[in-house]
C-alpha cells in the first residue's frame, strides 16, 4: 500500500534526474556543435593548412660551432634541418633561469662563438611563451624576450637564451634533455657554409669569410585567382552584399562594414583590411597566434612561407618565402605576406597572388657569392658609408624567367638593409 503511494513521485523524480543528467551530458559534450554544417566547411578551410603554427614559426637560421670553434651555417639539402632539430629537442623541461651578462658586446660575441654549440636564430625577438608553443616543450621560466637560443652539445643540462637587444645572456637549467639526439642531426648529410659572427655597426651579423657556393632554384609560379580570395574572405556567411569597383589598375571589394580588399593588378598584390577581428591580448604569443589564424582564414598557400620578422613598434609581422633555408627577397616590396595590426580589433594584410609550390630544374645548379668583406669593400667604393648599413644578409633574388612563362628563378645574392629597406647589393652599387 505504501509502495503504491510512493512509486509515482519516486519515478517522477528519477525521470527528472535522468533528463537533467542527459542534458548535462549533451551540453558538456564538445562534439555537440553543429556538425553537419561544419563538415562542409572543412574541405575549403583545411585545404591549405598543411603548414602548422610550428612550421611557419621555425627559426630562420641555424649555426653550429664545432669543438674547435669552426662556425658553419646549416642549410637544407635533402632534409629540413630546422624541423628535424625541433622535433628532436621538443621534450625537455626547464625551471631555472639566470641572467649571466648584460650590455657587454664583447662577452656577447664570445658567447655566440662558444665551442660545441648550435644556435637557433630568429630575426626579431620572440618570447618564452611563444617558444614553448613553437617548439612544443616545457620551458617553465619567467617570460622574457630573446632572439637566439644556444644549445650545448657537451652539456645537455643547460641552454642559453640570447638577446641582441642589450646583449643579454640568460642561462637556463634543463631536465630531460638528450644531447645525443642533437648530435645525430648534425651527423646527417647537409650543406654547411663557413661563417663567423661579427660585430658590425653595433649589430651582430653573420660574416662569410670566403666565397660561398649556393644552390639556385627554379619554380613554377602558382597564381591564385582574384575570385578565390573574393569568395573566401569577402563573402562572409551573413553578409553577401559585396560591392565591387573596378578601376584601371585595381579592383576594390567592400562589404559595407567590416572587410575591404584591394587587388593591385600590375604587382598582383592583395591588400586586405579586416575591421572586425579581436585580438585577445597584445602579448607576443597572442599576436602571433592571431596572425597565424588569419593566414589560415585567408587561405593563401603557405608551403614554403615562414616567419621572417616582427616589429613591435609598428605591430608589423613579415613572412617570406624560404628556399633552402634562406629568405627570398624581391617577391614584392614587403616579402611574401605582411600583416600589420592596426588596433585591438582590426588589421591590414598585404600578400601576393603569386606563390612558389612546384620546383623545376634550374638552368644552373649553383652560383658563387662573394665574401662579406668583399661586399663591404664594394659598397664602400661606391660611397655607401658603413654607418648607414643596418644589416647584411644572404638571400635569394626572385626574378621571372625570360624564356619560360610563369617560371621564377631564385638566385642567391647579398641583401643590404639601408633606410629600413632590404636592397639587392647590385642595385646599391649601380649594376642594376
Amino acid at each position, binding site marked *: 500500500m505504501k509502495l503504491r503511494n510512493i512509486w509515482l513521485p519516486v519515478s517522477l523524480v528519477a525521470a527528472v534526474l*535522468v533528463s537533467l543528467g542527459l542534458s548535462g551530458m549533451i551540453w558538456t*559534450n564538445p562534439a555537440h556543435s553543429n556538425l553537419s554544417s561544419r563538415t562542409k566547411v572543412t574541405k575549403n578551410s583545411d585545404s591549405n593548412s*598543411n603548414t602548422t603554427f610550428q612550421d611557419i614559426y621555425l627559426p630562420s637560421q641555424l649555426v653550429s660551432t664545432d669543438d674547435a670553434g669552426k662556425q658553419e651555417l646549416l642549410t637544407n639539402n635533402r632534409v629540413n634541418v630546422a624541423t628535424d632539430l625541433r622535433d628532436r629537442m621538443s621534450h625537455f623541461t626547464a625551471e631555472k633561469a639566470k641572467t649571466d651578462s648584460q650590455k657587454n658586446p664583447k662577452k656577447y660575441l664570445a658567447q655566440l662563438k662558444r665551442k660545441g654549440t648550435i644556435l637557433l636564430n630568429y630575426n626579431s625577438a620572440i618570447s618564452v611563451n611563444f617558444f614553448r608553443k613553437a617548439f612544443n616543450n616545457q620551458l617553465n621560466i619567467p617570460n622574457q624576450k630573446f632572439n637566439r637560443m644556444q644549445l650545448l652539445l657537451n652539456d645537455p643540462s643547460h641552454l642559453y637564451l640570447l638577446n641582441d637587444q642589450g646583449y643579454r645572456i640568460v642561462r637556463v637549467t634543463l631536465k630531460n634533455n638528450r644531447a645525443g639526439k642533437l648530435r645525430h642531426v648534425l651527423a646527417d648529410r647537409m650543406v654547411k657554409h663557413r661563417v663567423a659572427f661579427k660585430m658590425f655597426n653595433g649589430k651582430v651579423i653573420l660574416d662569410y669569410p670566403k666565397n660561398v657556393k649556393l644552390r639556385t632554384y627554379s619554380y613554377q609560379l602558382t597564381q591564385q585567382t582574384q575570385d578565390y580570395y573574393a569568395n573566401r574572405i569577402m563573402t562572409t556567411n551573413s553578409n553577401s552584399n559585396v560591392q565591387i569597383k573596378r578601376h584601371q589598375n585595381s579592383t576594390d571589394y567592400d562589404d559595407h562594414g567590416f572587410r575591404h580588399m584591394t587587388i593591385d593588378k600590375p604587382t598582383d598584390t592583395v591588400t586586405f583590411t579586416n575591421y572586425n577581428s579581436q585580438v585577445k591580448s597584445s602579448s607576443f604569443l597572442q599576436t602571433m597566434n592571431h596572425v597565424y589564424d588569419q593566414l589560415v582564414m585567408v587561405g593563401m598557400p603557405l608551403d614554403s612561407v615562414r616567419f621572417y620578422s616582427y616589429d613591435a613598434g609598428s605591430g608589423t609581422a613579415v613572412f617570406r618565402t624560404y628556399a633552402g633555408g634562406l629568405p627570398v627577397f624581391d617577391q614584392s616590396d614587403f616579402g611574401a605576406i605582411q600583416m600589420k595590426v592596426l588596433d585591438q580589433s582590426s588589421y591590414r594584410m598585404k600578400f601576393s597572388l603569386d606563390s612558389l609550390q612546384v620546383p623545376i630544374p634550374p638552368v644552373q645548379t649553383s652560383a658563387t657569392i662573394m665574401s662579406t668583406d668583399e661586399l663591404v669593400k664594394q659598397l664602400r667604393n661606391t660611397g655607401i658609408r658603413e654607418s648607414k648599413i643596418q644589416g647584411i644578409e644572404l638571400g635569394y633574388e626572385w626574378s621571372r624567367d625570360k624564356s619560360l612563362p610563369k617560371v621564377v628563378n631564385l638566385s642567391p645574392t647579398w641583401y643590404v638593409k639601408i633606410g629600413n629597406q632590404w636592397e639587392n647589393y647590385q642595385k646599391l652599387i649601380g649594376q642594376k
Partner: protein
Amino acid sequence: MNFKRIQLIFLAIFIAMDVMLFLSYNRNSVGDSTAAGSNNILEEMRKDQITFSEPTTKKHEGYYFSGNNGDALHQAAPDLQQQSIRFSGDELVSEFKKPLKITNGSAKQTLDKVVANPGLIADGNQYSYSKQLSSSSEIIYVQRVAHKPIYSHFCQIRFDLDSQQRVVGYSQNYLEGVKILKEAAKTISEERALTWLYQYNEIPNGAKVTWVHLAYTRLLTARGQYVFLPTWVFAVKINNSSAVILKRVNAYTGEVIKTGDNNQTSNANSEIFTLT
C-alpha cells in the same frame, strides 16, 4: 484534476523527454566522438556504398625530383645478351631469343632473377615488382626513388606475356639523372587524400577502392626534365565494370591530378584515366 494525475502527466512528459534527449545524445556521439571531420566523411562514403579498407592517418615524407630518359639504355644495350633490341625513342624494346616459361604464380621469382641479372636487363637493380600494376598479359616492374615507387610509363619495365604464359620480351624506360629539387616535405595522410578524392566527386557510388599506394607521379616537363612529386594513388573499381581506374591525389596539396595523356575511358569525367 487531482495531484496524482498531474504527477502522472509530468512523468509521461519527462519520460518522453528522456527518450528524445537520449536519442539526440546518441546521434551526436556517433562519428564525432573520435577526432571529427574526416571520420564523418568516411561514414558518408560507406552510406554511398563505397568499399575501402580503413585508411591510415600517418603522414609521410616525400620529395620533388627531376630526371629524364637519357641515353643510359642506349649505352647499356650492346652488353645485353640473349635478346634482340631496338629502340623506340628512349624506350628499349627487346625480344628474348628464347621465351621464358612461367609456371603459375612464380612470375615474380622467375623475373626477379632476370631483372637482377645485368647481362639481361640494364640497371635492373633499381626496379621492383609491382603486383598491383601487373595483369595477366603484362608484368610490370617499377623504378624506385627515395624508397618509393614511381608510377609512370617513363620508369618501368614491362614484360609481355603470350597466350601460353611465356615471357616473349620486354620494354624498358629508365629514369636517369635524378635530382632532388627541394628538401623533404610532409605529405597529407591517406585518410585525407581519400576523403578529398570523395569530396571532389571522383569516387562514384558503389565503387570499390582496391588498393592505395604512396607513389611518385610525373607532374610536368620543364627544361627537358620530367618533374615528379609524391601522390596518393587510388585504384578505384567502378560498379558493374571490370576496369580499374587509377586516381592520383597530390600528396602535398590534396588536389586531384588531371592527366591528359593515356587512353581515357568513355567516362564523362575527363579526370579519370587508366594507366597503360
